[in-house]
């Protein structure tokens, strides 16, 4: 069966031929294809790498204070290709944060956050927050002395917020001390809540880019 036949089969049922053709034929302004414009795409690519390597890591990782560190050791030293997959996850995470920050700087310098793109800028800032929380919660999951110390500072600092700080901490993390249970809750953030949020926000972010086009004020 040729590709054309598959598309015919799908088109008969879903009527998608025209949408595919429009998407492929869509024209982009040449200036929007230069190097500074690839940063958002690189962040998305890194996110996809995180999804794939993250699923692989989740098969061995134990989100529990007593077992977490040992399971990371197991992944690193025993599981075939474990060290490579874990290192890919680590590097793609760092690249994702860097790409998001540089992408944001590019959009800021172009002034592309102004009308009519206010909402997409806000979706982008939320994606930055999601990305940073991804990074931080993933760092905590390693559960070695360095990441434990940094996690303690980050998790306990908001607890000193006036009025709601301690309450917030209790709601999200259960305790205002970092225990093995905190780790389980950060794991839930890292592998469920944040991926869902990130996917929804990215969908919005990309749809808005498509609807509004690329800013050309420079």
């Amino acid at each position, binding site marked *: 069966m040729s590709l054309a036949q598959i598309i015919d089969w799908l088109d008969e049922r879903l009527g998608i031929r025209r949408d595919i053709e429009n998407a492929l034929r869509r024209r982009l302004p040449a200036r929007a294809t230069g190097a500074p414009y690839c940063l958002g795409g690189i962040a998305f690519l890194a996110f996809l790498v995180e999804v794939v390597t993250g699923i692989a890591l989740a098969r061995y990782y134990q989100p529990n204070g007593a077992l977490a560190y040992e399971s990371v050791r197991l992944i690193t030293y025993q599981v075939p290709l474990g060290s490579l997959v874990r290192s890919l996850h680590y590097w793609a995470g760092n690249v994702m944060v860097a790409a998001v920050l540089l992408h944001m700087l590019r959009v800021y310098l172009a002034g592309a956050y102004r009308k009519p793109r206010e909402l997409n800028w806000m979706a982008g800032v939320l994606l930055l927050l999601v990305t940073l929380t991804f990074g931080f919660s993933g760092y905590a999951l390693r559960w070695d002395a*360095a990441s434990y110390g940094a996690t303690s500072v980050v998790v306990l600092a908001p607890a000193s917020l006036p009025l709601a700080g301690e309450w917030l901490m209790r709601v999200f993390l259960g305790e205002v001390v970092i225990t093995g249970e905190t780790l389980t809750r950060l794991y839930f953030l890292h592998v469920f809540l944040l991926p869902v949020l990130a996917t929804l926000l990215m969908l919005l972010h990309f749809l808005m880019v498509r609807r509004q086009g690329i800013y050309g004020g420079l």
Partner: protein
Amino acid sequence: MKDVPFFPHQLVRELALSCVVLGLLLVLAALLPAPLGERAVPGEVREVSPPWYLSPLFGFLTLWQMTVGGSLSIAVLVPVLVLLLIFLLPFIDRREEGAKERRMRILAGGAFVLMMLFLAYMAYSADFESYAVLLP
């Protein structure tokens, strides 16, 4: 300026760039494996080393402790406020685009990036003692 169709021009370029990025990630992962230190002991903070993207935040907290001191409750509000301002930026800067506006924007952005770098430097030069005061 001329425009280009997504297919095949842009698609080929994006696939090529994706291959380069994936290749670089593989090289980085193979040459510089993800670190793993000593096992954490719950309740016992022996070292604090923030990931690089949180270092401006840590730098700010240690700087606050060294200068203002006292409760962290106000220090924690500052980064929250900064983030809120960034979130609402499109409603704060509503001027028409012009050469002057562009210059101002680049200056403000440059100053912000420099400040972040300075705060990150503060975090890296801080010793364990200055982090210890951040913990209850």
